């Protein structure tokens, strides 16, 4: 098909979808829709992971990001009862400037990365490193210490979130 392999087709389609959904995340007015578009973006990224033969990571990505984190976002947004009408909007000038700066940043980044390894092909299909067995081996040998530290980080984040989220007593309540 037009001289492209299936992989290349898949890459192109997934990339386009990811960029489109990402743009929608930014430009949709309703926060709920934003979240949903972000979830779609994450699915596209998970597809990329599959293309790169990182199956385990793809699954984890969907479970953690799309499943857990984005649901949390959605939950909070629902809780706060935000919608398109309550959505505050930046001044138009600010948004234009933001767009311009984004363009410049893209330009500079592309310029900076132009000298990168050109035409090195990523042979996703033959890679074995994305398998759970291989990843686990690396994770529990070479990166054991950071892994344990990450657990402490998550624990402290848990405690911190509970501490912050706990309803504080108001001044009147303390007075009583």
């Amino acid at each position, binding site marked *: 098909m037009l001289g492209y392999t299936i992989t290349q087709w898949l890459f192109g389609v997934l990339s386009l979808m990811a960029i489109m959904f990402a743009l929608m995340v930014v430009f949709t007015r309703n926060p709920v829709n934003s*979240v949903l578009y972000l979830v779609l973006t994450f699915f596209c990224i998970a597809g990329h992971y599959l*293309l790169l033969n990182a199956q385990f990571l793809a699954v984890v990505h969907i479970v953690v*990001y799309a499943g857990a984190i984005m649901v949390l976002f959605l939950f909070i947004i629902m*809780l706060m009862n935000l919608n398109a009408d309550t959505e505050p909007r*930046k001044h138009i000038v600010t948004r234009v400037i933001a767009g311009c700066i984004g363009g410049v940043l893209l330009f500079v980044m592309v310029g900076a990365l132009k000298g990168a390894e050109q035409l090195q*092909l990523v042979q996703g299909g033959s890679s074995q490193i994305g398998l759970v067995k291989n990843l686990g081996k690396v994770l529990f040998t070479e990166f054991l210490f*950071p892994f344990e530290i990450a657990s402490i980080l998550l624990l402290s984040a848990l405690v911190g979130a509970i501490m*912050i989220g706990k309803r504080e007593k108001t001044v009147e309540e303390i007075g009583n």
Partner: protein
Amino acid sequence: MLNGIPINYYIMLCAVLFIIGVVGVMARRNAIIVFMCIELMLNAVNLLLVAFSTLHQDASGQVFVFFIMAVAAAEVAVGLAILSMVYRNFKSIDIDLLSRIKN
């Protein structure tokens, strides 16, 4: 057997995703959307890490992604807790509005 994709394409894709995230952070006032844009930027970097990991046939890149996910999860947990707290106190999560309460 699937044929490979040049690494430059991945770099470009990730750069674009990253910059969409940056623009989102700059252009939106809703703190939660800003937060989501940050997640988007993190994911752009994740994708690039995986791409390079496969390119160099080195599992470290993918392990980094695990750690980034763990950090992101922790960040989201704390960040959303803070935001819900802010919302409870100010009835708004507009970052421009929040700037004005610095005093």
